[in-house]
């Protein structure tokens, strides 16, 4: 892939150099923030990809309840219109409203995952929708007439065909969750502080070099995950979609 080749030209740094970089990091803010970010992004991406795919499947493939699906589609595009900072503050206010049964979520990792997935929902939803639209509706009818169960259709046909899109969605949510700031800045606690928030806090203390280092850590992870996504994608696609040559 040409894009990745050019990426390497600009970033000729491999694992040895990142190790130096980690040493530099220790005196700065904790390594734990970085771990939190990784954990949060992994959860958000895995959970998000699953939710988004099922949501898009229901919206696209269901044969009944047209008005319900239209309404759902509208709701799913709504996050695109809401700035992350506004969503974060809305969560903060909503969850601290007295009598909210979900208030136990406050200060935990779950609320960060939920707000991130909600914030990023629309673009992955559209990606999945496009992938599902590529699959003819007749296939479902054939499956139905052959008395195939929905789960079997899903696991044998729909998911393998849409696998590339699902992987893309996973990558998108992961990358955005690693670098997101606005949706989580009001919702973290001292235990769940993320690296992106740490960057801002280090920068506030004036040690810009440490802030840059922490941000570079994020870039390296993003690059590594991008590469892993590419390699896994190649392998998986070759197995499940041999007709597609890329």
């Amino acid at each position, binding site marked *: 892939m040409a894009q990745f080749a050019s*990426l390497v030209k600009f970033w000729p740094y491999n694992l040895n150099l990142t190790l130096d970089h980690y040493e530099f990091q220790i005196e700065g803010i904790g390594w734990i923030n970085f771990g939190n970010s990784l954990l949060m992004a992994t959860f958000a991406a895995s959970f998000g990809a699953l939710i988004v795919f099922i*949501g898009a499947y229901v919206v696209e493939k269901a044969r009944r309840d047209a008005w319900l699906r239209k309404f759902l589609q509208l709701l799913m595009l709504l996050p695109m219109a809401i700035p992350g900072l506004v969503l974060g*503050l809305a969560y903060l206010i909503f969850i601290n409203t007295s009598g909210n049964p979900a208030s136990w979520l406050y200060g935990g990792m779950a609320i960060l995952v939920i707000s991130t997935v909600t914030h990023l929902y629309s673009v992955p939803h559209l990606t999945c929708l496009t992938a599902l639209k590529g699959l003819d509706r007749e296939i479902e009818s054939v499956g139905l007439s052959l008395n195939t169960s929905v789960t079997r259709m899903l696991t044998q046909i729909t998911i393998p065909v849409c696998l590339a899109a699902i992987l893309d969605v996973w990558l998108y949510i992961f990358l955005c969750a690693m670098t997101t700031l606005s949706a989580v800045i009001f919702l973290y606690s001292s235990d769940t502080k993320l690296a992106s928030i740490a960057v801002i806090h280090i920068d506030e203390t004036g040690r810009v070099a440490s802030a840059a280092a922490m941000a570079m850590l994020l870039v390296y992870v993003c690059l590594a995950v991008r590469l892993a996504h590419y390699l896994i994608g190649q392998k998986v696609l070759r197995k499940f979609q041999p007709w597609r040559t890329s």
Partner: protein
Amino acid sequence: MSAQSLKGLNAFLFVHSKPQLMERSDWLVRWVCLAYCVSAMCTIVLPVGALFLRSFNNADGSFVGLQNYLTYFNTSALFDSFFNSLIVSLVTATLVVPMAFAYAYGLLRTCMPFKPFFRGVALIPLLIPGVLKAIALVYLFGNQGLLREWLFGHPLYGPIGIVGASVIWTFPFAVLIMLTALQHVDHRLYHAAAFLKTSVWRTFWHVTWPSCRYGVTTAFLVVTVSVFTDFGIAKVIGGDFRVLATDIYKEVIGQQNFQMGAVISVMLLIPAFVVFLLERQVAGKQMAQFTGRSLPYTPKPWFGAMAYFWGGASPSRFLLPACWSWRSLRPWLSFGPTTLT
């Protein structure tokens, strides 16, 4: 043939013609739909509703109507930041969109060499957080920056820095939108134009421009709203220059003033929402243009254009690699520019 499969065949044959009994899977789908609606309500509609409500309450939680909004509009320090945000985002969009247009045009419509390389270069920043771009600019043009003289003594911290970092940050998004917009044009129109001996300029305005103006509008709207709502860049490089996003942060984290934070959030939300509606409308129009009969455009070598685009139509091509290479060195230079100079 068992009764089960007969039922399936029946469902298949009459699926479009007459109402049928709900299958078990239909019930499942209906319940999943409802569950999604409920969770979307809980995660989007209710929190934003709570935010709206809070903007009409005072600190004790009692209803005060529009009083918070009146305070907001009468405090010039607060209200000014609305215009600051607006100006910064409009300036950024005005700078980025022509640059991205020229870049995408060069990639798709000319025969310039090293196209994959330039495409990659434009899209790398997608992997880099916006905050890091602001930090890179601090190192390049900040008070101890390498290229400080280039700003002729103007301080980086403030509108210049925000616009600069936002330009670098939003450029790849704009390029992506412009690439899709420019891809979807019918080559037959260019054949017709060439056959009628239309001038290059006229062809551009009468063929190229109408086919991609929706894309340009979308790019403009997306860039504007991204910069308008962005927090990280303004926080790192904004200095004393107030914008809406940093105002919310200051009110909520600094002063625990939730109701004012809510008011500013509403001020941020409404323009973003309007732009969202506009963008959906424009995007719908763009899709309708390319039909099945259209031929994709294939560029012809034209040396004037090649020299123009390759020679550096967009200054970003040189500025961006400079920023990246410098930034990637940063963490390893333990003391930064002070040890270098």
